[in-house]
Every structure is written in structure tokens, then in C-alpha cells.
């Protein structure tokens, strides 16, 4: 393994594993490989493994033989070659209505970036984004891969209420608000898809390592899809890709 990892205690029951500080796909892939090895590890003691850009948090019931012992065990799991099976990932096609009715910040971005609104929609919907992890709100996907030309600073004053489904840009990131929330990102559209649904066994359809591609729809289609989503019968188009 080419990464030099550090292992730190985090509270009474946790080990934080950190990769060199960087946000990139190679790091993400290695983080997720380690996570998948841990998930298939039989140790009943682990109650939770959570990944972020360059870290894994492992929470235990309790350390069987102390922190140091557990770290040596983790190190050997990390370096073990056993079936480093290819990680499967899914590409999700997500409809977004970029109509000005939703995209309330399209005009200001268009002025600031000297791009037409059509160009913004084009740049935003032609990229395949990578899901790095889920955080901030239940079902909020941290997506990497935004076209540099669309990077827009967060608003100086956050809005008190951003609508559920708002597709937005904050700095060099883009994301969809899974529920109504205060927020400082710039809103360019709205997706009728539920990014978080307690009715499903797994409340998020996407998971770290998956990919997202947005496709533009008009107001009418937005309404139609929303009706189907509310009835629980809208199938999100997807392709399975090998990692």
C-alpha cells in the first residue's frame, strides 16, 4: 500500500485512521477499500465504520486488548492482500430543473462568471460527480468534480430557509439539499428526487464512492416526476460500474 496512515485514539471507543491530507479519488478509493475490508471483518466489537475524504472513524463496543493492540490488528488488515476485490459503484442519473423559478442564483452567477445560464446548466449537467461521503444533513452528498468555471463563493449571509431538493454550488463543491435547511450555497435548480427517505431500508440510495450525473428537465417534467416520487414509484436511472 502506498499510503502512510496514522492511527489516533478518538474518545473512549474510537480509532481515527487518517490518510495524508488530500481530497482526490485515489485517496477516496483506498479509504473505501479499507472500509470494505473492515466491514467484512468478523470482529463483533466494531459497531460503526464511517468514512470521509481522507479518514475512517472506527467505533468499538470496547477495545478487547487496548488501543495499541487494535492498531496493530488494523495495520495488518490494511496491508493484507486478500481478495482486494474490485469495489462496485453505481452511477445515478438525477433529474434537475434549472428553471429560474428554482434557480434563484443563476442570474448572479451568470453575471459574475460571464457565462450564459444555458452554459452554466451545460457545465453543471455534463460532469460525472463522485460521492465522497454523506454529512452535514441526513442525505447530503459531498460531491467532487465541479467544473472550475462554476466555482462560486458561499453567500456572505446564509439564507434562513433553503427548499428541499435545491441544487446548489458552494465554493468548488456542488450538492443537493435533502431537506429544507438554512444554508449559504448558491441555488441553481431543484431536483424532485428524495435523497433521504426513512421508508427505505437504506435511507440513502447513494453511498460513498458512487457517482452522480444530473440531467436537465423542465418545470412540467419536474412536477410529473415529483408526483411519481411522492407515490414511491419513480425509478432512478442507474448504471453499475466497476471500480
Amino acid at each position: 500500500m502506498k499510503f502512510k496512515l496514522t492511527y489516533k485514539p478518538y474518545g473512549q471507543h474510537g480509532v481515527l485512521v487518517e490518510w495524508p491530507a488530500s481530497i482526490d479519488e485515489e485517496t477516496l478509493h483506498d479509504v473505501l477499500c479499507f472500509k470494505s475490508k473492515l466491514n467484512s471483518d468478523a470482529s463483533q466489537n466494531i459497531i460503526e465504520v464511517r468514512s470521509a475524504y481522507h479518514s475512517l472513524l472506527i467505533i468499538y463496543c470496547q477495545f478487547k486488548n487496548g488501543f495499541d493492540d487494535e492498531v496493530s490488528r488494523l495495520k495488518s488488515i490494511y496491508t493484507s492482500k486478500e481478495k482486494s476485490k474490485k469495489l462496485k459503484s453505481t452511477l445515478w442519473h438525477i433529474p434537475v430543473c434549472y428553471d429560474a423559478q428554482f434557480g434563484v442564483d443563476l442570474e448572479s452567477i451568470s453575471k459574475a462568471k460571464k457565462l450564459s445560464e444555458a452554459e452554466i446548466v451545460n457545465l453543471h449537467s455534463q460532469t460525472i460527480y463522485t460521492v465522497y461521503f454523506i454529512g452535514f444533513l441526513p442525505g447530503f452528498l459531498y460531491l467532487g468534480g465541479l467544473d472550475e468555471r462554476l466555482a462560486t463563493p458561499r453567500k456572505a449571509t446564509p439564507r434562513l430557509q433553503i427548499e428541499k431538493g435545491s441544487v446548489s454550488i458552494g465554493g468548488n463543491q456542488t450538492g443537493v439539499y435533502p431537506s429544507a435547511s438554512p444554508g449559504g450555497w448558491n441555488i441553481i435548480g431543484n431536483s424532485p428526487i428524495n435523497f433521504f427517505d426513512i421508508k427505505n431500508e437504506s435511507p440513502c440510495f447513494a453511498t460513498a464512492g458512487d457517482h452522480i450525473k444530473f440531467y436537465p428537465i423542465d418545470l412540467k417534467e419536474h412536477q410529473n416526476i415529483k408526483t411519481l416520487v411522492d407515490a414511491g414509484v419513480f425509478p432512478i436511472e442507474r448504471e453499475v460500474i466497476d471500480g
Partner: protein
Amino acid sequence: MVKVLKPGLYSSVQDLGRMGYQEFGVPYSGAMDQYAVKIANMLLGNHESAAVIEMTMTGPLLQFECETLICISGANMNPKLNKENIPNNKAVAVKHGDVLSFGKLQSGFRSYLGVLGGFKTEKVLDSRSMYVPITRASILKKNDVLFSENTTFNHLSKHSHIKVDESYLASEILEVFKGPEFDKLTKTEQKALLETKFKISKDNNRMAYQLEEPFENKLEPIITSAVMPGTVQLTPSGKLIVLMRDCQTTGGYPRVLQLSDSALNVLAQKFTGQSVRFKNLL
């Protein structure tokens, strides 16, 4: 059934939290003072994670429409059953029509009402802990009705009795471990962090407690990474933020300290203007 006649300042149903959904961005939630919940449930013979009502500073006014046993633990809010004083940390039988009220806060900040078998409210993602948008409501409202089992119980006052250590309610000491970024502080800063007395600011709730005194530092923000209840974050402007049960699952501020499990219970019983200091366990 238990009817909410008045909800109190901030009352919610909580259990020990929502485990296993953090990778989807779901907060743990759960009772702020889990020691008190475990005591109340133990005295009732409940499972330790049975749902209770968490009451903050000013308790609710509740009417029982069933026969059952109740137990109150945590802060002392002067509980009264039909205007008669009842003690904390003791199982008490209630009858159909009984009214439970609370008076002036005597000690601590959050009190817990357990009921035989636990409150049978909405369970979402394996927990009854209230947290919007996971559950529909975040607090109890007037006229809410909470389901609980009806069990005729001829309770004798000689029944289950234990001595509960309540010294944590008044303690100012928060036991901590080093956080992942503690070593990035200078030696002087590390020393100061562990020796300073901090005041609880008015920004304190189920999500986080901010501390009043600014703590100057030159730490860089970190790449967004996992946080959990008890994590002490330090912002570039010098704010110390202690994350509590409803905190988000990830954060970008340096994590300088991590409270022990019992320190979280201690802090949960503190309110605006009170002091705390950190005590390093390692």
C-alpha cells in the same frame, strides 16, 4: 396514555440514540444525560434504552390516563404528583387521572421522566429520539398524547431503593481525552486549554454548547472529517464548541479535545453562565 397539558420549556422524547446511520449523515441524538436515563429505567426494571421524556429547565404538566409506574432522574425540578412532592430516583405508582407537575429548578438543568415499559412513540431508524427531519416533531406540544403500557401496580414504598450518586449535577470538571488535532496546538496553548475556567455561553442546546471565552489560536481548518458528541471544536476566531447529542456527523474545525462519556452527562446538566474546566485523562 399520557397527555401533555403544558409542554414545559423544551421537552422531547429521547432514548439512548440512533446508532448505525451516521454514514448517511444522521445524528446520534438521544438523551443529553444518559446516566440519568439509565438510572430511571433501571429503577423501573426497563431496558436501559426505553424511551423517556427529557425536560429542560422548566418541566411540563402531564396527565396520566393509565395506571403505571414512573421514575424521575437527573435535574431536580421539584416534581409533584397531584400537588404532593415526590422524590427523584424512586419508582412511584400513578393512577388514572393523576397530574404530574414540576416546580422550581433545584439542581442540574435536564430532568428525565421514565415510565414502566418506556414511552411507545414513533420509532424511526431504530430509535424514538426526536430529531427533525428524521421524526415529525422535535419537541412535545400541548395536547400531545404519548402511548405507554397500562399496568395495574400496587406499589409499596419499600420497593426498589438504591443510592444514586448525584454529585455530577454540581461538578464543574469535564474529563477529556486529546482530540485528533490536540497535538497541533503549541505547548503553551495545550496548557492554557486545560487550565482555563470557561463559562457556558447563551448558545447552548442539544446540538452544541459554545464556551464564552475566546481561545486564540493559529490552527488551520481541517479537511472535513468525522465528529461525534463530546468533540470540542476550535474555530479560527477562537470559539470553543462542544458538540452534543444532536450534532452533525462531520465537521471542518480542528477537534482539540474529546469529552469522556460521563463528561457529556455532566455538561448536559449545565446552563448559561455556569463554569467548567477540562481535566485531561491521558
